Structure formats: C-alpha cells, structure tokens
C-alpha cells in the first residue's frame, strides 16, 4: 500500500471534517493528536520487543522472570504502556509453537510491538488462523514439525501476548545487541521464526 496522497478522498475529507469541528468546539487538542501519532511512528515499535527477547535469550534468570511475570520483566527494560498493562509471554520451543491473534478486533501488545500490521487486523488472518492455523502459517512461509503442538492464543480479553521465539542455532557468540537484530516483529506474533526475514 505505502503512503497515499489522498487529501480529497472520502475518508480523508471525513476525518478532516471531524477534526476541524472538534477543534472549533474546543474539544480536541491538536498537539495531543500530533504527539500520539509521532509516539507510535517514532518511539514505540517492535524494537522494544526485540530487546526483551534478546535479553531473555542472553539471561536465563531474566527469561524465567519474563515467563512468570511478563509485565514486570518488560518493565525492567523501561518498557510499559497502554495495551501492555497485562502482558503474558509465550515461549516457543521444539515441542510447542505459539501464535497470537485477536479474532474480535485488533488487540495487540503496543508497548513491545507498536501498532499492529495490516494483515494482523485483516478478516483473513482473524477468521482463518483459529481454524486452520497450520495452513495459514505455511502460506506465510512458516512450516512447523507435525510433532510440534501449535497453540493459538486469541486476545479476547485484557491480556496482551508476545511470543518468545526460539533462539536461532549458531548464535552462541552474538552479543545481546546483535541478537536484537534477529528478532522480527513477526517472530514475536508467532508467524515467523527469529533470524529469518
């Protein structure tokens, strides 16, 4: 999709109509709108989650704390915020693979992953991943072992999930910072492995 120049399309006009009316009525703070947007465009994104994962890979005690109390362990790295107040981390292993969805809307752990990508919010992903998860993951390029239990987590209430992906083989010598670069957003949703594009 990319960025459109669409100042005269209907959603754009409608949005500007709403914004201008709310400003005139003294209800909307333009600076708040600006700041909220720039926060999610610039400050809060999947790099936060990658730092959590790299730390867990590097520090067994941290990993234990992450799996026991994700919200607290994430906060140790200075990461917290809206839609991440009640976090649970799900560990992928050779026996168990976890994948996260919100079938009812688009619930997603904002502080660690930023705002969700379009496909995560699409009817196709939401409808299909609960009933045919292996097929969906295969389409997305992730083949699981038949022996691996696949678990689908529907974010239907107020817990927000992040997946702790498996640490890729051959990364023993990497620093925590180098490990961070292997951790993709998709691997923390559970639709990809870490260390792959």
């Amino acid at each position: 999709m990319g960025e459109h120049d669409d100042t005269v399309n209907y959603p754009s006009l409608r949005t500007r109509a709403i914004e201008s009316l709310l400003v005139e009525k003294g209800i909307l703070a333009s600076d708040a709108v600006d700041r909220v947007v720039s926060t999610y465009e610039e400050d809060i994104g999947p790099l936060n989650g990658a730092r959590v994962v790299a730390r867990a890979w590097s520090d067994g005690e941290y990993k234990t704390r992450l799996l026991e109390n994700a919200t607290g362990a994430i906060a140790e790295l200075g990461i917290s915020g809206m839609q991440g107040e009640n976090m649970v981390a799900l560990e992928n292993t050779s026996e168990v693979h976890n994948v996260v969805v919100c079938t009812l809307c688009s619930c997603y752990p904002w502080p660690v992953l930023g705002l969700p990508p379009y496909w995560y919010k699409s009817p196709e992903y939401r409808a299909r991943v609960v009933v045919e998860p292996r097929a969906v993951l295969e389409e997305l390029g992730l083949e699981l072992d038949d022996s691996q239990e696949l678990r689908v987590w529907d974010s239907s209430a107020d817990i927000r999930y992040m997946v702790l992906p498996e640490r890729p083989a051959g990364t023993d010598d990497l620093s925590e910072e180098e490990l961070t670069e292997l951790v993709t957003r998709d691997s923390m949703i559970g639709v990809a492995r870490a260390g792959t594009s």
Partner: protein
Amino acid sequence: MARAHDIGGLKGLGRVEMEQDEPVFHSEWERRVFGITMATLGKGLFNIEQFRSGVEEIPIVPYLESSYYERWIATLERNLIRAGVVSEDEIDARTTELSHRPETEVGRREEPEFCEMLLGAIHGGMSPERELDAPKGFEIGDRVVASGTEVLTHTRLPRYVRGKTGVVVRLDKAFVFPESNAAGDGENPEWCYCVRFEAEDVWGPNAENAAPVYVDVWESYLVAA
C-alpha cells in the same frame, strides 16, 4: 456471529497478504484518525468498549470491505454523536464544504496539560484491572463450558467457543466487564481466566489441521462442566 466482527472460523476468506516494509500509517488521514481517537478516548467522551461496539455495528459487507481505519472513522463518528459533541449533519456539511475547498486548513488548538497527561497514560498504561473482593469461581484445571447464551450487543466471548468445553489454564486479574461498560452500565469487574479448548471440541471431528485455542474469558461467561 450476531455482529459482523465475530468472524473466528468463518470459511471462504482468502490468503493473508503481508505488506513488505509496511509503514505504521498508510496516509495522513489514518494518522489523524488514530490520534483523534486516542485524544477523545483520553477526554472520556467514550470508553474503549463503546469504541469497539461502534465498529461491530457496521453491517458485515462494509465491515469486511472497508479498511481498518475506515472502520475507526465510523465508530469515532458514532461515539462522538452519541456523546453529544457533534451531530451527523454537522459532519456531513463540513465534509461537503471541504470537498469543495480541499485546500482549507484544519484549525488547531493546544492543550499542553492534557497532552502530557495523555502521553503519560500511553507510556504508563491504563489497566482495566480492578479490585474485586469476590473469590475466584474457578481454579486451574477446572473444566468449564463457555456460555451459549446469545448476546446481540457488545460481547467479548467469540462465537466459535460458545457452548464449547475447555480447561482453565491461567488465572488472571479482575478486569472491567466489557458488556456492561459498553452499555454505559458501569464497569462491574469480573475475574478473568485463560481457557484452553481442544481443536476437536471447537471445530468438530472434521477439523483438519486445527490446533488448541486459548481464549481469555470473563467469569460470567463460564459455568463448570
């Protein structure tokens, strides 16, 4: 699915298409819709459940065909109108004006204090966790049946587990009960649980390739199996 959004398990939908190097927003109006929503939510003009409920009121064809932030425009409008701060006629009229004079600048006003408060909430969080004296009704390992009672308004129990049996695997905190808060009837917090449903118990004997589903469920949605 009494409402358009409750689509877990719906057949016939196509491939999941990923976009390479997807930006956070795809256009300026998406940025503004997101920001306006957060700012008006922050002002308390509506709550998150009312916001979600407004999305769910979209009929299914436009729901499935519109883009994500188009659905946000729809519920934002609905909720601002219900809050009484703007009317549909006003929005219609202003939209028409802007279509005739697209170069018109949107006005600005600043509220530094509110802005700081909102950013504080974004970075600090605003948990729907609430104190609850009532004892938890279920323990880990309990077999439970998810409610089969139809809810025609806002609900957070996905249809695909209604009437199905699962096992409690995690005890969560007490959270605001969405059905009540969406209806403007107060927060009425309840204990929450994570329930594991086996694939064959959800999708029947013909489920191919399915997997256990973990669903987070408020206590009043559950009875002991």
